[in-house]
């Protein structure tokens, strides 16, 4: 018990030390001239207009093999809770054909222990944990990332 307590104490103090280092470093950094901001940190930047959600109904390219497919349509007001899952109202295997929607992958029928279930596994129920809509926004910082050849985007 006491060993555990000591470990917790040790971890907490280390964390606090790290935190104070980070705080002192950031406060010591020169105002402005950061990677993302163009303006002085001490001056309130003008608000950037909100980005529009992409609503094109097509299939969006994936950037890496395991990427969860993106949502290519507007999902304002879509309810996903214990009463109802609006996504599955079209994307479940039962309903997909009727609506011409993409069926959810069969991987969603396995629980975390690898057991195959008759329907969507509870751990997969909240679609937006992995699948997200996209806004029409440029990346804030350029990067060199390229998808692998096999994706052929």
């Amino acid at each position, binding site marked *: 018990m006491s060993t555990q307590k000591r470990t917790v104490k040790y971890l907490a103090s280390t964390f606090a030390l790290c935190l104070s280092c980070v705080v002192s470093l950031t406060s010591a950094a020169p105002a402005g001239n950061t990677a993302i901001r163009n303006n002085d940190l001490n001056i309130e930047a003008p608000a950037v207009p909100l980005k529009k959600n992409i*609503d*094109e*109904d097509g299939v969006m390219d994936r950037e890496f093999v395991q990427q969860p497919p993106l949502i290519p*349509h507007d999902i*304002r*007001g879509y*309810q996903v809770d*214990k*009463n*109802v*899952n*609006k996504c*599955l*109202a079209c994307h*479940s295997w*039962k*309903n997909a054909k*009727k*609506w*011409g929607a993409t069926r959810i992958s069969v991987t969603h029928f396995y*629980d975390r222990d690898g*057991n195959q*279930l*008759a*329907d*969507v*596994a*509870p751990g997969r*129920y909240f679609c937006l944990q992995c699948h997200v809509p996209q806004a029409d926004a440029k990346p804030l910082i350029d990067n060199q990332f390229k998808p692998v050849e096999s994706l052929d985007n």
Partner: protein
Amino acid sequence: MAKEFIIKRYWKILSRPTSVGLGLILVFGFAAGIIFWGGFNTSMEMTNQEEFCIGCHEMRDNVYEEYKTTIHYSNRSGVRAICSDCHVPKEWGPKIVRKIQASKELYGKIAGTIDTREKFLDHRLAMATREWARMKANDSQECRNCHNFEFMDFSEQGGRAMNIHNQAIKDGNTCIDCHKGIAHELPDMRNVEGWGSISPAHGKGGDSQ
């Protein structure tokens, strides 16, 4: 003798009114008609206002709060559909029928049928089903007061919406068949046709409780 005379005299007055009396009756009757009819209509319109609907906490704290997040409350052009636009028919006859039905809700208010959020949620499926049935029966008239298939430019819609709306016209579907829960949260949809997706909270599909 005298009694008979009085009755006769009054009968004479009543059966042969002077033109002045007749004119007075007409004028007063007309004026009273305007006042009563106007008053009736005004008070009925008053019960169609948003302030009236959210005057009771059952509506204000539940459906109204949910509706405030939706497109019928807030949107780019500022056009709104208030409670009565969807829940009360515009035509006089159906409106009176709906208003009389709504008087039953007063008993619910007195009995406190839905006076807490929990009670409201318990009754939500029944209330929603009733409203869906009403809109199905009148071909979603309240939707169509603004959204009419005839005047929809499908080419302005997304591909999804265009295809499904075209199919809906062919199949003779009505708005509420698909557009449920657009202004309020949905109840438990397990047993509602066309939905029926599973939810872990209901103990289906594996290791949930």
